[in-house]
């Protein structure tokens, strides 16, 4: 039992990471990772929503008619998201403005519904909570890594503090404008996926086509 709990918490961090293995939640990972601060807030918001919705759905899992379960799950998730959104607007209005629509879009984040449907709907609340927490942390890990790279090289600082002095201010660092644009997050996430799959080959998908090395023909 203990190992099962630990597995629910630990495997989503790297081995079954929702972003890098299941390629879920990419849109928020691309959209709000241009600064570490917004990434941290987003991670916290998503983890909170994920934990709440997973526990609730797990508790009512035996009372849910199969045919309407998705509607109920989305309702639970949407309620949690609205609470988080309202809390942010009330207590951190500027942060809420920075994140704008993306807090609301947690409803459509595939990680949340994915965990509810794939795990919480079949498992007791305790282990569902740990699974949700693990997935939230796995998402946060990728999000914060991407945001750190993007903010560090895009604007030369972290959390608004200057780390590299830019060339304009007399230092050596040239800010890479591309890292502040959303496409860079695709490259960085792609690079992280590449890195993880080179380190853990069991995550690789089966190749659809085999690349035939032309050398075998050529060097005869």
């Amino acid at each position, binding site marked *: 039992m203990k190992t099962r709990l630990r597995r629910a918490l630990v495997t989503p961090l790297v081995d079954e990471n929702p972003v890098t293995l299941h390629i879920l939640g990419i849109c928020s990972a691309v959209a709000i990772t241009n600064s570490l601060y917004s990434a941290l807030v987003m991670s916290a918001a998503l983890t909170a929503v994920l934990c709440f919705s997973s526990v609730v759905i797990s508790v009512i899992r035996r009372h849910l008619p199969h045919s309407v379960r998705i509607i109920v799950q989305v309702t639970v998730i949407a309620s949690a998201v609205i609470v988080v959104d309202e809390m942010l607007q009330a207590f951190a209005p500027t942060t809420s403005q920075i994140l704008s629509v993306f807090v609301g879009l947690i409803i459509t984040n595939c990680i949340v519904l994915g965990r509810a449907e794939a795990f919480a709907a079949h498992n007791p609340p305790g282990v569902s909570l740990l699974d949700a927490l693990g997935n939230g942390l796995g998402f946060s890990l990728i999000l914060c890594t991407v945001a750190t790279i993007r903010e560090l090289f895009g604007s030369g600082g972290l959390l608004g503090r200057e780390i590299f002095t830019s060339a304009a201010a007399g230092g050596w660092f*040239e800010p*890479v*404008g*591309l*890292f502040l*644009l959303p*496409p860079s997050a695709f*490259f960085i996430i*792609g690079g992280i996926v*590449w890195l993880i799959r080179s380190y853990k080959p069991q995550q690789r998908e089966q190749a659809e086509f085999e*690349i035939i*090395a*032309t*050398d075998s*023909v*050529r*060097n*005869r």
Partner: protein
Amino acid sequence: MSNAAITKLRTRTAGDRRWRLIHAGLLMLERFLYSDEGRNRAAPFVRQAVSVQGNFNNLLIASLPCWLIGLWNIGYQSNRALDSLELESLAGWRGNILQGLGIGFQPDSLLACLIHGLLYFAPLFVLVLLVSAFWEALFATMRRRSPDEGLLAFAWLFTLLLPAGTPLLPVMLGVSFGMIFGKHIYGGSGFYLVNPVVVGLVFLWLAYPSVVFGPDRMIPVSGVDVSAALNSTQDWWAAFSGARPGTVGTTSVLGCVVGAGYLLITRSASGRIMLGSLLGILLAAQVFGAPALSDAPELTQLSVGQHLLSGGLTFGIVFLATDPYASCMTNPGRWIYGFSVGILAILIGLANPGVGEPVLFAIFMASLVAPLIDASIVAMHKARRRRRIDGVMDQ
């Protein structure tokens, strides 16, 4: 010197320790001129004069006029700038070399301008070549394959599209990006979606537009007013021949036309793509040239000729759009692909004057849909044939 003569010389030097360097050099020359890779030495003995390596070599040879004019142009622009600033010599190691050799800084002297240009081109090219060779070697080792062809052409074309006075660190990043994300993640030559030169340069344009391609990089003399130089060389002949500030090898439309002729004679590049692009540019400049459609009224006043003579538009459609892997394979597809490159190049330039080299972005986007164009052409062809067969069967 014919192939046989080189081979004869090479076999004579083979096996002799004293001649091994010359032997290696001759081997390289032979490989470069008459690469026989791709020829089949077993049955069915298919022999073809053009190999993959040979095709890339032709690309490189075709860009030699652009390169020579570009070298002269760098020197000419810099020496003229020195003249206008009333400086006796250039600061830094290039100035020391030019002065030490007694070549001087006269804008009228062909030799002075060429050597001056070479001193800017050579370090840039060597750097690009070394960085790309590093990635090529790394991936070849990792994948246990021989290195891809076209490394030299990649480095060569990449350097021709950079300004002379560009800082080296961003260039290294751009080359690495082009090699990794443009080429090797897809499996190397023959598998990539977009020409890696284009990918690397688009990265540089997005990441460091002012650092790498800023106007003060075009003429590498500190303190010179480039916009004045740009305005003073607005006559047609200067723009056509390439005597204007710009990147290393793309200023000369003359060189591009000569190169295009060579590519077409050796059949190394598709004339359909070049003509299609030209048609696209003609049409787009006529249709979208109305000032109301654009954020850049001064650009919409340009005629088709001026569009073709500005920036690296011609260079792009001759040397980059015709990439054999990233462009279309079917003949109707080549027309459509070229046409879209032309239209997109003008449209992107008009809609966003901040994009310095719209043709790169146009090629990028057109290359992405090139497989789709090919697939549609093949599907249409199949459908037509099926209809014909069905018609015969019905009778």
